[in-house]
């Protein structure tokens, strides 16, 4: 699956943890052959083996497999602990470390055959000593061999009769399912002479060739700098590469997928161009063909998107440990339940939601769940519950973080907000309970130095909200005092392509993600009201500030200069179109000259020089090849909010 790359980071961080365990215990091992220590080490080696073989780092898998064998024999007391063995484990840990580092650097690390041999020797029980040797064999079948898996079965059967198969590349179940090209590698521990094995294998039908895998050089264990490592590896590649296998998964660099997504984006744009060009022709055939093209592009887009999808598990997986650690620190008892971890979403989104989630969960632990004592007093189970869930619903992904803790009180929130100067008393008095809860997302509700149980919720929540909005997503909160709080994040399935509305303002075309548009209305300028000189309109009893886009961008607004004047008499009487943008529960109305139409747009970055322009989220390429800026609703709404607040305050 295309997401393999995504697991790498997780793999390495987890692998290092296991390595740490192995390394710590190897120290103690020397002192005594304690069974528990052996069991811990065995588990670590076993986990590493499984992980590395899953992700395709077969050399790491091979080494850990042999370590596992040795540990198992120590554990079952078939073997007794010696200083030699302890030393050997140290060597293994160092070697694993080197392998991991190389692999992480994108180099191919090879397991040290000689070390493997010594491990195998060490794990031979006394009667086996000196007879079994570790051998790698690459078996190649003839091209177009029918029933390859049955051939492989014959080969493996023969090998099983001659020794212990330690590892296959690709893994044995892939071989059984014929997920290999013409060759596979078997590592076997055997007392037979290698030539004997080869001649027996060659005798099997359709076997073209059997060759021993030879790692000519010991992989870099000495640390003589990265440069040397690379050189020594490169010089080896030519000879050892033959030993590589074909996997059922093709590992693709993430940026190639991005490039493919871009190309799909190009197709979307080009189709729009064709539609525009073709319109005057009024050809039914052309329309039909374009429709078909649209369907194909849609399918292509979906498949590329699927390739970019990765399970949210890789974000969720960090949380059990985090919650355990945090709850211990805080002296709380917390159970974490994870649901829907196989839910997939775009890799670019996965990369960005980790931090906001860490923040939300930390908040749940810190401020949501009460201390055991407090919970007992409240007649609740002293173990608090945090539920983390993800699911797909109607084109979106919902991630919910709920706790059954103390919940939040809207009135307290208001009080804190007033105290902190986030809102005034008057404003507070107008807020509904729901709106009061929204205060947690406001900047400055609380400071890190002065965390109270309620206000602590506010630390950084404004940042969480802006991250989500930058992803075209949103966040909401529900709470019941004494019963708990749920934060719900809503995210689009993908970032790259969204529905957008094209609007014209002062001869400039802008694109607005449909997601941010609440509604478009036409109103008479007569209905414009003013609060402290700032124009607002009243839509269904809601005051919405009007924001002139040119004025926001610090330019002259040819059509709506009147808005800046306090005297409403001067507003020319006419109909204006307003686009109402929404972010959170806030809205802003933007006058537009023309609604051009709705289309799929491909979001592009404006590049380093233009990255941080307020109000602009990026750009897209229109059907005619021109570029149009994409408006950032979040910033615009926030601006409007400030202004209406100002106005309301001084009314």
């Amino acid at each position, binding site marked *: 699956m295309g997401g393999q790359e995504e697991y790498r980071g997780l793999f390495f961080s987890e692998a290092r943890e296991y390595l740490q365990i192995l390394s710590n215990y190897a120290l103690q091992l020397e002192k005594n052959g304690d069974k528990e220590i052996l069991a811990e080490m065995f588990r670590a080696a076993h986990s590493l083996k499984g992980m590395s073989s899953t992700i395709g780092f077969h050399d790491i898998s091979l080494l850990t497999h042999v370590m596992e064998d040795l540990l198992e024999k120590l554990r079952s007391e078939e073997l007794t602990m010696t200083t030699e063995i302890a030393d050997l484990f140290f060597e293994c840990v160092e070697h694993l470390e080197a392998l991991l580092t190389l692999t992480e650097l994108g180099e191919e690390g090879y397991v040290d055959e000689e070390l493997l041999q010594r491990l195998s020797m060490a794990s031979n029980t006394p009667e086996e000593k000196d007879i079994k040797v570790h051998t790698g064999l690459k078996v190649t079948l003839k091209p177009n061999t029918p029933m390859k898996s049955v051939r492989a079965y014959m080969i493996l059967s023969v090998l099983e009769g001659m020794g212990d198969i330690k590892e296959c590349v690709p893994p044995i179940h892939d071989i059984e399912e014929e997920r290999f090209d013409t060759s596979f590698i078997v590592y076997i521990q055997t007392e037979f002479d290698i030539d004997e094995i080869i001649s027996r294998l060659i005798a099997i039908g359709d076997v073209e060739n059997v060759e021993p895998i030879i790692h000519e050089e010991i992989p870099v264990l000495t640390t003589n700098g990265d440069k040397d490592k690379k050189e020594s590896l490169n010089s080896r590649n030519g000879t050892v590469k033959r030993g590589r296998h074909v996997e059922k998964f093709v590992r693709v660099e993430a940026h190639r997928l991005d490039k493919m997504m871009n190309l799909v984006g190009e197709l979307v744009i080009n189709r729009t161009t064709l539609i525009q060009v073709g319109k005057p022709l009024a050809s039914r055939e052309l329309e039909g063909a374009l429709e078909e093209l649209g369907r194909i592009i849609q399918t292509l887009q979906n498949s590329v998107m699927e390739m970019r999808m990765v399970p949210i598990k890789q974000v969720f997986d960090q949380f059990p440990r985090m919650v355990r650690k945090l709850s211990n620190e805080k002296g709380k008892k917390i159970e974490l339940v994870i649901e829907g971890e196989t839910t997939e979403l775009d890799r670019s989104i996965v990369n960005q939601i980790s931090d906001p989630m860490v923040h939300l969960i930390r908040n749940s632990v810190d401020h949501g769940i009460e201390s055991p004592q407090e919970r007992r007093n409240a007649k609740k189970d002293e173990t608090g519950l945090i539920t983390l869930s993800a699911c797909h619903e109607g084109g979106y992904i919902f991630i919910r973080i709920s706790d059954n803790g103390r919940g939040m009180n809207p009135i307290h929130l208001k009080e804190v907000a007033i105290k902190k100067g986030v809102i005034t008393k008057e404003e507070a008095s107008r807020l509904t309970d729901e709106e009061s809860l929204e205060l947690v997302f406001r900047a400055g509700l609380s400071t890190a130095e002065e965390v109270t149980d309620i206000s602590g919720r506010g630390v950084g929540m404004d940042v969480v909200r802006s991250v989500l909005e930058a992803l075209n997503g949103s966040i909401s909160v529900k709470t019941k005092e004494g019963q708990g709080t749920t934060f719900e994040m809503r995210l689009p399935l993908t970032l790259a392509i969204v529905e957008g509305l094209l609007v014209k303002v002062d001869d400039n075309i802008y694109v607005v993600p449909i997601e941010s548009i609440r509604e478009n209305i036409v109103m008479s300028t007569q209905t414009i009201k003013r609060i402290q000189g700032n124009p607002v309109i009243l839509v269904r009893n809601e005051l919405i500030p009007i924001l002139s886009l040119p004025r926001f961008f*610090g330019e002259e607004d040819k059509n709506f200069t009147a808005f800046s004047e306090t005297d409403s008499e001067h507003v020319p009487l006419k109909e204006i179109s307003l686009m109402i943008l929404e972010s959170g529960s806030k809205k802003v109305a933007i006058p537009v000259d023309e609604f051009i139409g709705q289309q799929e747009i491909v979001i592009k970055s*404006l590049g380093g020089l*233009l990255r941080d322009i*307020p109000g602009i989220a990026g750009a897209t*390429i229109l059907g005619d090849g021109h570029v149009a*800026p994409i408006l950032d609703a979040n910033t615009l709404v926030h601006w409007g909010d400030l202004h209406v607040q100002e106005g309301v305050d001084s009314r």
Partner: protein
Amino acid sequence: MNTDSYAVARLMMQFVIFNIINEEFAIDIKKVKEIIRVKKSTRVPQAPSFIQGVINLRGDVIPVVDLRKRFGLDATEITNETRTVIVEMRDDLLGLIVDAVTEVLRIDEEEIEPPPKNIAGLKAEYISGVGKVDERLLIILNIEKLLTSEERLKLESKDLGKEGSR
């Protein structure tokens, strides 16, 4: 191009030479992706004034800088000679509008001198070096510095009087 590239031990370096007014400028050819005619650009609100806008270069959105404006002059008038030089800066592409691209030159490394304190009104920090070919003085620009600095510049060319007023 970094400021010490004149000192890098290479025998010959290749440069794209272009004109602004009658000054000759040079950019390391390794930084130049392509040279295109001027395309219609889309203005980006609140962009720095010397950024003329953004263009669509085969599906990539890239900013275009009017070098005349960056040098504190009036915007470039588009003529048949005007070109956009697409360069790579950090990982981004961007276009530089120049009066004309004249040639690609090999300059002997020996002939590249460290930037003088001030040349044509430009401070040394915006210049990677000065190449001398025959009687010509080629100002090798430090594009990155030029476009990330907020300082207002004023190009002073001997020909500015007659050119600047057109």
